[in-house]
């Protein structure tokens, strides 16, 4: 499969009053066309910031380290995302080749403008088409995502739709420009389980139909197991484990991934106690030295975890982990 986007050594800090805060630290991954990546981690792990970097959407106080590189492969050639500056250049990644769905659909639609006008507006911005054409495409998209009566719905406001319907409309809007990559930031977290199941089904159908790549950000490993091909687990800005979904969920190698899986309440075993990952994620202002996870790790080896950053260890062609338990390279001084 050919690559759609490559992220290499992405390091991102925010300038704040309290000093430089590292949000993403040396993260690399790549996504092929038609592939679904699940980006997993607790709040504060840097998953949303990583995704937003792909669209250059982070706030102005964001500082990308010089070695960071994001390459998007489009039909027109390679695009170096982080070098884009003007609004016109950024249109390529913002709504052009990449679309994003946010967690809270009510907050993502303008409340006083109809769903239709918002869909038509972005279609006209990104494609050369008439209002009537754009409206026709919008109605088709609403129909495609399973909204009944799209001719009537298109002239309604976001508050007139239910939560599930709003998220469907959001997906329709994101897909109407035919992006190559869809970033879905916790798209089902605010929904009921029954509606979540419907939205997940819909997204799976759409991947097959439009053959686009999806980055699915979530803290729910169950959702990842049901949707993703590949999982990236993040903790405090670092990618701690990456691999095919079956591998990572069945044979997690990093203690943090194991902790996340054990913390899930399981329906097939009601007697097993719930085991939280102990402690809280540290503030990014007080990043632990060495392995960032050592303050909460149950399998800590000793001083090496507190002093040295673990290398990425490639367990096989597709599964890699950053943990001293698996570190086969000699740790340099």
């Amino acid at each position, binding site marked *: 499969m050919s690559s759609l986007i490559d992220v290499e050594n992405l390091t991102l800090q925010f300038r704040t009053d309290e000093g430089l805060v590292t949000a993403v630290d040396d993260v690399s991954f790549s996504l092929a066309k038609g592939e679904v990546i699940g980006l997993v981690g*607790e709040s504060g792990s840097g998953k949303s910031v990583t995704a937003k970097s792909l669209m250059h959407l982070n706030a102005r106080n964001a500082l990308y380290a010089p070695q960071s590189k994001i390459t998007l492969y489009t039909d027109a050639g390679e695009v170096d995302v982080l070098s884009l500056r003007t609004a016109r250049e950024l249109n390529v990644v913002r709504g052009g080749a990449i679309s994003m769905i946010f967690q809270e659909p009510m907050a993502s639609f303008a409340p006083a403008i109809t769903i239709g006008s918002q869909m038509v507006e972005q279609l006209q911005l990104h494609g050369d088409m008439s209002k009537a054409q754009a409206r026709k495409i919008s109605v088709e998209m609403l129909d495609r995502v399973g909204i009944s009566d799209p001719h009537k719905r298109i002239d309604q406001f976001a508050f007139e739709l239910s939560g599930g319907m709003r998220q469907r409309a959001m997906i329709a809007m994101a897909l109407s420009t035919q992006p190559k990559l869809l970033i879905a930031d916790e798209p089902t977290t605010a929904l*009921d389980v029954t509606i*979540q*199941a419907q939205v997940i089904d819909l997204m799976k159908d759409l991947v097959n139909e439009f053959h686009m790549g999806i980055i699915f950000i979530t803290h729910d490993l*169950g959702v990842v197991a049901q949707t993703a091909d590949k999982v990236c687990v993040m903790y405090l800005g670092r990618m701690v484990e990456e691999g095919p979904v079956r591998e990572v969920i069945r044979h997690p190698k990093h203690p943090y991934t194991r902790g996340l899986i054990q*913390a899930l309440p399981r*329906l097939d075993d009601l007697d097993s106690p*719930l085991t*939280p990952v102990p402690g809280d994620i540290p503030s990014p202002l007080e990043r632990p030295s060495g392995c960032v996870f050592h303050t909460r790790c149950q399998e800590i080896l000793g001083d090496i975890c507190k002093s040295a950053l673990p290398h990425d260890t490639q367990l096989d062609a597709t599964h890699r982990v950053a943990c001293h338990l698996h570190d086969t390279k000699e740790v340099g001084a």
Partner: protein
Amino acid sequence: MSDDILISADRLTVGYPLGNSILRKSVLKAVNEVSVHIERGSFFGLVGESGSGKTTLGRALLKAAPITEGRAIYRDDEVEYDLSTLDGAELKDYRKRAQLIFQDPYAALSPRMTVRDIIAEPLEVMGLTASRQETDERVREIAAKCRLNLEHLRRFPHAFSGGQRQRISIARALVSGPKFVVADESVAALDVSIQADVLNLLKQLQSDLGLTFMFISHDLSVVAHTCDHVAVMYLGRLVESAPTRKLFAMPRHPYTRALFSAIPSLDPDDRGKAQKLEGEIPSPLNQPPGCKFHTRCPNAIDRCKREEPRLEDPGDGHEVSCHRWRELLETVPA
């Protein structure tokens, strides 16, 4: 009612009047003739989608939503209150016996108050302590039980993570020494890694302080692990109610079964096996006739469209409200 029941609701209805027209007065019944009995010292789970009326039922039992029909009795060792008529000094007394833990720990805590002041506020408002010293003592006591230390009490909420904030809201709810606590989606806003920690804490506090919990959640797997008894609501009605083990071993209502199969499985090879529920919960203003669930039920027959089933107890304490549950148990595997 028997001695070990703390709260007993009988055909409880919460209705909200809608705009009056000259011809008729319409009433939105958010909770419709629900009967529940909550045992002392139990963890009573209430499950359903948004719009099913679970929060409204919880609030009615706290006397924070109007009970328009039916009755609810609260009885502990000291007092017995009829919640539908409770007011004045008795209502004030009930407030310290029944408390609520909110869903969002980010919205529930005032950013301008220290943690000590947040936890002490109920004591001061209700006038439960005689001196500042006594207040401090009680705050420290409950804070320690919720694993907050003295250092934490001096700080403001912004300095805390989601899990710590939820522990602060729990301390605040428990400081007045309630017997009955409604936890409304109290772990829904938390990460899974922290969720387990808060659930374990609630269990611990329940046994230490002899609390009775009503645990409202849309997450069946969380309920399965914490509750002793589970009631499932749909569109203001109770559709199934049973001890947790019985419910999870063999759910009887098609809605409960659908809720089960909608939980995303951790097994990547399970994809697409789930029985998916079509559509969404109908608006309470426009309720379907007959069984409220028939519009989405995969097993609905003509009878379901005409006749509303009643909640029945076949004698084993596993109540269900469905015309066809017996035949479905045999023909449709769970």
